[in-house]
C-alpha cells in the first residue's frame, strides 16, 4: 500500500514523514526544503497490519497546476502513480489557502485523509476549527495532528483511517469541469469559483479571534531582525556567537573526551605493533589510517555543536528571515529571491543546496545559483576552518564568521559578473516568501538532525577519508621505483613529485610547498581530506590540545611544522574554501545546470575566484604585516590579470549581444 503525503509548502509533510517512517529527512521551518520525493516504510507502531505501507513525501505544492518543477513532481506522482490513499497535510494556521489544493486532490478519485497539522499553533492563536463539520463538507476524514509532537497526537489515527479508506470511493465536494489550461481567462475564472467554494467552507468551520492592526510580538521581532540596516549586523553577531560556542567554548570541551579516546587507541595500537613490524606497515596503519582519520574525527564534536546550533536557528524560523535580509541585496544582482534558499541549505551541504535550485524557474538564475551556492562554506569545510582558526588565530570566532561573509561577497560579485556575461543586467526579480511563525526550537529535532549528520561524517571518515589517507601515506612512503624513501627525503616521494608542479602555481598565494598542495588536491575528493592529508604529510596525530581544552593555538608546534605565516594560512584557508567544491557537488552542479558550457564556465570561475582571493589575501596581508610584498607577486599578478581580462571580455561580449538584441526589437 502506498500513501502519498501531499500539501502546501511548509505544512509539515516531511516532519510527519519522519515521524511515520523513523527517517531523518531534512526539515526546515520554511517553504521549499523538500524538492524531490522521498519514500519510507511506515513504522510498525503505526502499522498494525502485516502488509508494508510505504509513505511517499512529496514536495510542497499550492495547486495541481504547477508553477515549478518540484510542484510538478507532486502533481505527476498523485496523477500518474495512483497512490492508494492521499494524506493531505493541511496547515491549520492557514486553512483557506491550504483547502484550495485539498479540493483539487479530492477530484482525483483517490481516497483522501486530511491531516489538520499544527493544530497546537491554532489553539494558541485562539482559533477554533470544527473538524467534524469540515470533514462533512469535504467528504473525507479530517484528523487533527501535531507532527512535531509525536504519534500520540493524531498520527496513529491517520494511518488507521488511511487503511480503512484504501480502495473506497472518494466523494467530490467541488468539481471543475475540464478547463483548457492554455486559456488563462478560463483558468482564472475556474480558480475564482474554487476560491469561493473554499471561502464558504472556511466561514462555516473556522472561528478565529479577530485581530486589530496592532503589532504582534512576531511583528516586533521581525522589525528588528529583518530590518534594512540592523538585519545584517544581527546575522553577523549570531553567526559569530555560533562559531564562538562551537569552536572556542563548548566544542573543544566535548572534543577533549573524543580526542582522548583516539589518542588512547593510537597508543594501544602502537604498543601492539611493537618493534618487530616493518616501519612502512606501521606508519601506514598508525599515521595513515589511525592518525589521518583520527585527526578528522577529532573535529566531530565541534561540527556537531555547530550543526546543532544551526538546526535550532532554522527550526525557530530565523533562517527564513535571513533569506529576507539577503533578498534586499540579491534582487539587485539579477538573482532570484529564491536563490537564497539553496545558499542557506548549502551551509549544511552543497549538494542539497544545489538541488534546491530546482525551485527556481528562470534557467539563467537557476544555473547561476547552482554555480554560486558552493561558495557558502559547507559542513565538510568546517574542520578546515576550525583547524586554521585554532592553529593560526587562537580559536578566533571571527575567522569562521568572516568566511561566511566572504562567501556572500564572492556570490555577490559572481552574480554581477554572470548577469553581464549573459546580457541580462537589467533583470530584476521579485521574491514572495511566506515567513514561518517563530516558534520555540525543538531540541529533539535539532539532536536528531545533528546525529544524522554526525553519523554521515563518521561514515565518510571511515570510508573515503580513510582510503585517501592510506593512499597519501603510500604515495609519501615510496618513490617511483617503489623504494621506500629515506627519512627526511620525502621530497623524492611519489606524492611530492605529483604535488610539486601544483605547488609552483601556488607560490604567489603563499603556500607553494608540495605538502599543502597535496592536501588541497585531496580536498577535491572531500574537503575534510585537507585536514586528514595535512595530518598524514606532517605526521600529526591530532590537532586538538586535550590539556588546554582548546584547538592547538598559534604558539604550538603545528604552526611551526607547517611553516606558514598567519596571512599565508588565511590565504590557504580561502583557497580551499572558495575553489570548486568536492566532485560529488560538481556532479550535482552538472545535473542541475544541464549544460556543459555552464558547468565548465562555473568550475573555471570557482577556480579563478579561489586563486585570486587567496592571492590578494596573501599579498595585501603580507604588505600590511611586513611592509613588503610576498613571493611570486609578478607571476600571480599576471595570472590574475589574465583571469580579469577574460571576465571583462565575456562581460563585454554579453552586453554587446544584449544591445544587439535590444536594437533588433526596437528596429
Amino acid at each position, binding site marked *: 500500500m502506498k500513501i502519498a503525503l501531499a500539501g502546501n509548502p511548509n505544512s509539515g509533510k516531511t516532519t510527519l514523514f519522519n515521524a511515520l517512517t523513523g527517517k531523518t529527512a531534512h526539515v526546515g521551518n520554511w517553504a521549499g526544503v523538500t524538492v524531490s*520525493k522521498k519514500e519510507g516504510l511506515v513504522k510498525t507502531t503505526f502499522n498494525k497490519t502485516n502488509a508494508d505501507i510505504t509513505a511517499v513525501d512529496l514536495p510542497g505544492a499550492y495547486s495541481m497546476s504547477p508553477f515549478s*518543477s518540484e510542484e510538478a513532481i507532486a502533481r505527476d506522482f498523485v496523477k500518474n502513480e495512483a497512490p492508494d490513499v492521499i494524506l493531505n497535510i493541511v496547515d491549520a494556521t492557514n486553512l483557506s489557502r491550504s483547502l484550495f489544493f485539498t479540493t483539487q486532490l479530492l477530484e482525483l478519485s483517490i481516497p483522501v485523509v486530511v491531516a489538520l497539522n499544527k493544530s497546537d499553533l491554532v489553539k494558541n492563536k485562539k482559533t477554533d476549527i470544527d473538524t467534524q463539520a469540515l470533514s462533512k463538507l469535504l467528504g473525507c476524514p479530517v484528523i487533527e495532528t501535531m507532527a512535531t509532537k509525536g504519534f500520540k497526537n493524531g498520527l496513529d489515527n491517520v494511518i488507521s483511517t488511511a487503511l480503512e479508506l484504501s480502495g473506497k470511493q472518494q466523494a467530490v465536494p467541488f468539481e471543475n469541469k475540464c478547463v483548457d489550461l492554455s486559456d488563462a481567462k478560463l483558468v482564472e475564472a475556474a480558480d475564482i469559483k474554487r476560491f469561493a467554494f473554499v471561502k464558504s467552507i472556511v466561514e462555516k468551520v473556522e472561528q478565529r479571534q479577530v485581530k486589530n492592526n496592532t503589532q504582534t510580538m512576531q511583528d516586533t521581532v521581525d522589525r528588528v531582525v529583518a530590518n534594512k540596516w540592523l538585519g545584517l549586523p544581527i546575522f553577523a553577531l549570531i553567526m559569530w556567537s555560533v562559531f564562538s560556542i562551537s569552536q572556542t567554548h563548548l566544542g573543544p570541551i566535548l572534543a577533549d573526551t573524543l580526542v582522548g579516546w583516539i589518542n588512547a587507541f593510537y597508543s594501544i595500537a602502537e604498543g601492539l605493533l*611493537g618493534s618487530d613490524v*616493518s616501519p612502512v*606497515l606501521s606508519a601506514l596503519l598508525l599515521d595513515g*589510517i589511525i592518525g589521518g582519520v583520527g585527526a578528522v574525527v577529532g573535529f566531530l564534536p565541534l561540527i556537531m555543536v555547530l550543526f546543532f546550533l544551526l538546526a535550532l536557528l532554522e527550526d525557530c524560523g530565523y533562517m527564513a528571515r535571513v533569506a529576507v535580509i539577503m533578498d534586499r541585496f540579491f534582487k539587485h544582482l539579477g538573482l532570484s529571491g529564491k536563490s537564497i534558499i539553496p545558499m542557506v541549505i548549502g551551509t549544511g551541504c552543497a549538494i*542539497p543546496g544545489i538541488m534546491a535550485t530546482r525551485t527556481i524557474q528562470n534557467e539563467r538564475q537557476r544555473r547561476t545559483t547552482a554555480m554560486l551556492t558552493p561558495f557558502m562554506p559547507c559542513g565538510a569545510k568546517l574542520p578546515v576552518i576550525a583547524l586554521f582558526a585554532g592553529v593560526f588565530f587562537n580559536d578566533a570566532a571571527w575567522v569562521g564568521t568572516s568566511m561566511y561573509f566572504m562567501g556572500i561577497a564572492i556570490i555577490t560579485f559572481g552574480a554581477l559578473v554572470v548577469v553581464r556575461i549573459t546580457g541580462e543586467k537589467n533583470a530584476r526579480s521579485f521574491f514572495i516568501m511566506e515567513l514561518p511563525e517563530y516558534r520555540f526550537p525543538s531540541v529533539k529535532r535539532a539532536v536528531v538532525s545533528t546525529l544524522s549528520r554526525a553519523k554521515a561524517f563518521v*561514515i565518510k571518515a571511515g570510508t573515503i577519508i580513510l582510503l585517501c589517507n592510506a593512499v597519501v601515506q603510500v604515495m609519501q612512503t615510496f618513490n617511483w621505483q617503489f623504494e621506500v624513501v629515506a627519512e627526511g627525503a620525502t621530497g623524492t616521494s611519489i606524492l611530492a613529485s605529483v604535488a610539486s608542479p601544483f605547488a609552483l602555481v601556488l607560490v604567489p598565494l603563499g603556500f607553494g610547498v608540495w605538502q599543502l598542495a597535496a592536501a588541497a588536491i585531496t580536498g577535491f575528493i572531500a574537503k575534510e581530506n585537507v585536514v586528514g592529508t595535512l595530518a598524514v604529510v606532517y605526521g600529526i596525530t591530532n590537532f586538538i590540545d586535550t590539556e588546554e581544552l582548546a584547538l592547538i593555538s598559534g604558539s604550538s608546534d603545528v604552526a611551526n611544522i607547517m611553516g606558514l605565516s598567519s596571512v599565508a594560512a588565511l590565504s590557504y584557508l580561502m583557497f580551499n574554501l572558495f575553489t570548486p567544491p568536492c566532485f*560529488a557537488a560538481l556532479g550535482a552542479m552538472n545535473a542541475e545546470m*544541464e549544460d556543459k558550457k555552464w558547468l565548465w564556465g562555473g568550475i573555471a570561475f570557482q577556480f579563478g575566484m579561489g586563486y585570486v582571493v587567496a592571492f590578494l589575501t596573501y599579498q595585501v596581508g603580507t604588505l600590511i604585516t611586513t611592509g613588503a610584498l610576498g613571493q611570486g607577486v609578478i607571476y600571480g599578478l599576471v595570472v590574475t590579470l589574465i583571469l580579469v581580462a577574460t571576465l571583462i571580455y565575456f562581460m563585454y561580449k554579453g552586453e554587446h549581444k544584449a544591445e544587439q538584441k535590444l536594437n533588433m526589437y526596437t528596429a
Partner: protein
Amino acid sequence: MANIIVSLIISLIVVLAIAKIVSEKRKGSTCIGCAESGKCSSAKSAKKQP
C-alpha cells in the same frame, strides 16, 4: 609473521571501507558521507519538468 598479520589487518580495513562505499552506492546514495545521502534523488530524476 607480525608483518603478515599487520598487512592482513590493513587489507581488511581497506576492503571494509571499499565494501561500505560499494554498498552505499548500490543503495542509491549519490555521495557517501552526506547526511542527505540516499534520500536525495539521483541526477536522472533531477531532470527538469517541461
